[in-house]
């Protein structure tokens, strides 16, 4: 086998120009695939980071309280008792926060925006401190009542700066109009689509706006030590809360605000809990990752076809050039299978070397792009969930890309190799190319 490998490598070295062109094409395709994969991984990581900061925990215990059948509020009443059940049944828990939820109009002197309102206890929000990049003001001032944190885009629309006053207007769960005057204490940099629809106020202010009791919150957000535990914790919590006597809603992998219609159609009243995970809560934005993955798939497919034609063509040329050599090898006793292996190995070596170079090239390009902190236009920010281009290497995915493209180039070489192996020694030796 080593001899066959040697022949394959020498053959590639002998036909440098051909090897360089075909190998270069394979390397470029691999590099492109690696860049797209890193973009997809970066996008997914950004969504996870933004979403688990702005609007969801890894797992959430939330729910709806219905005063009447047609009137639901996204709240968990007497949440401290729920916290006890959660702490007992989730040993994987890293930390837990309570977050108020609301949907209201924020109004300035010059404009208004409709946004989701997160009620936070800023002293117990490590995620917000890590992820939010404050452009103006101080995040910790959110500890004062009747204050608000906005994002860049909202501040621009409302034409406000730190210190300005805003009015939040929303109906209470009983449908009574209420308002709250708040002072802007911090403006954070945008985090893509999710930050467009989120602002933060102290939870006490949110409770005042919605006339909620202090033992009522919007959601309990659970952050786990290991993300892989999410499905198990999700399922276990459902059972534990049901066993503790809570009414738990059927699994519905959607964001909580997409459930109002269906919840309002149902005839029950009172409290029902809803267990969701981060993937459910951001299902409305993960389409960007899906779209990017689809684009990567289509692009890879098209490029692989081009490569396949190239590889097959090269193999044909190689076989034609080496027909007399094949005849000689066959005449001195080389088995057909070994001839087949000889050509397959040539394609495999070409594939492995080219894809490895391509992977290195792609990773280098990604590293350069990350280092350049390229600012993306606002329209693109919506989809990238970030104001700069972020690519994240995933060694497993890169290795997968290398192996996949190498496998494809090798598989494509099988047919011409098989035909080469079938050549009769006498006719091959007489072949005049």
């Amino acid at each position, binding site marked *: 086998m080593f001899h066959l490998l040697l022949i394959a490598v020498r053959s590639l070295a002998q036909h440098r120009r051909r090897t360089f062109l075909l190998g270069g094409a394979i390397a470029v395709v691999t590099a492109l695939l690696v860049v797209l994969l890193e973009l997809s991984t970066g996008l997914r990581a950004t969504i996870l980071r933004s979403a688990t900061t702005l609007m969801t925990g890894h797992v959430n215990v939330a729910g709806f309280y219905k005063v009447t059948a047609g009137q639901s509020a996204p709240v968990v009443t007497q949440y401290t008792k729920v916290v006890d059940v959660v702490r007992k049944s989730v040993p994987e828990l890293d930390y837990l926060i309570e977050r108020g939820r609301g949907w209201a*109009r924020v109004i300035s002197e010059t404009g208004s925006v409709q946004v989701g309102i997160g009620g936070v206890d800023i002293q117990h929000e490590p995620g917000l401190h890590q992820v939010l990049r404050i452009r103006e003001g101080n995040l910790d001032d959110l500890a004062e009542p009747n204050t608000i944190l906005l994002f860049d885009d909202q501040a621009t629309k409302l034409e406000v700066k730190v210190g300005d006053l805003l009015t939040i207007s929303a109906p209470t769960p009983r449908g009574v*109009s209420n308002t709250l005057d708040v002072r802007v204490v911090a403006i954070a940099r945008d985090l893509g689509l999710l930050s467009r629809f989120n602002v933060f106020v102290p939870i006490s202010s949110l409770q005042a706006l919605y006339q909620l009791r202090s033992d009522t919150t919007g959601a309990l957000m659970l952050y786990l030590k290991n993300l892989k535990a999410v499905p198990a914790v999700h399922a276990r919590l459902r059972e534990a809360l049901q066993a503790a006597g809570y009414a738990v809603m059927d699994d519905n992998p959607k964001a909580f605000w997409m459930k109002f219609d269906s919840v309002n159609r149902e005839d029950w009243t009172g409290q029902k809990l809803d267990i969701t995970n981060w993937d459910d809560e951001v299902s409305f934005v993960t389409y960007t990752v899906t779209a990017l993955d689809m684009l990567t798939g289509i692009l890879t497919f098209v490029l692989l076809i081009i490569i396949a034609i190239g590889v097959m063509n090269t193999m044909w040329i190689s076989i034609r050039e080496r027909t007399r050599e094949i005849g000689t090898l066959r005449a001195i006793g080389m088995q057909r299978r070994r001839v087949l292996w000889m050509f397959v190995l040539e394609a495999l070596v070409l594939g492995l070397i080219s894809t490895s170079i391509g992977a290195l090239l792609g990773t280098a390009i990604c590293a350069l792009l990350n280092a350049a902190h390229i600012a993306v236009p606002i329209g693109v920010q919506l989809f990238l969930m970030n104001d700069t281009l972020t690519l994240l290497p995933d060694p497993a995915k890169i290795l997968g890309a290398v192996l996949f493209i190498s496998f494809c180039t090798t598989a494509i070489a099988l047919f011409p190799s098989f035909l080469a192996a079938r050549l009769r020694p006498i006719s091959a030796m007489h072949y005049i190319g």
Partner: protein
Amino acid sequence: MHQLARSLALLGLLLGSSAQALMNQDQLLQLLKTLDDRQQNNGDYRALVYLEQKEKDQTDVIREAIVYRRSEDQRLIILFTKPKSEQGKGYLRVDKNLWSYDPNVGKWERRTERERIAGTDSRRADFDESRLAEEYDPSDDGDDKLGSYNVHRLTLKVKPNVDVAFPVVKLWVDTATNNVLKRQEFALSGRLMRTLYYPRWQKQFSESKKGDFWYPPEIRIYDEVEKANSTIVLIKTVDLRSLETNIFTKAWFESKSR
């Protein structure tokens, strides 16, 4: 001494006249019932309604709708007929549930009775029968002037365990005609939310009521939080004849939505 006596007499006169202007609780309740009764038909009601919505930095939108009401069971339909994008959409109130229908998705959604109608500054109550005495406790703010009109001012506070969009309402009632000329509505926080003006009132004889039915042909609604927003409601061609019996059903609404 003489001057002091005159001053005291004048003060007494003033206090006497203001005490005379203020109504007692029974009189206030009676006034509210009168206001409600003037606008109640004790039967069916159909009206063509136009809503002109003005919002900052937006093109004005005019909607045409037909409002159907039945006093019995407090039933209500608001069916939009124009513009084309709104055609067939609307609201149905049955058994204290307000349902919204969108023919584009063919789904009914249960909504709170206190939400904005079609995103305008109007509320369901603006199209419904007046139920002030049922929902609010009145207090008297005395007499006042509104332009050239002599008015009586009332402050209404929502009764316990009653759900309304605005827990505090102030009314300016024409003392000569008992027409409501102005209405201000406040949020729980005490902030003024909407001001409504009723420049005209019309009456129509109702067979079912065996008396006059009053309605405002025009309501001007000003959003006091987003100051640039306003809505004008025009109520036209009011018909007080009986409607079909099966009209207040989802099936009927859907048939009209197609």
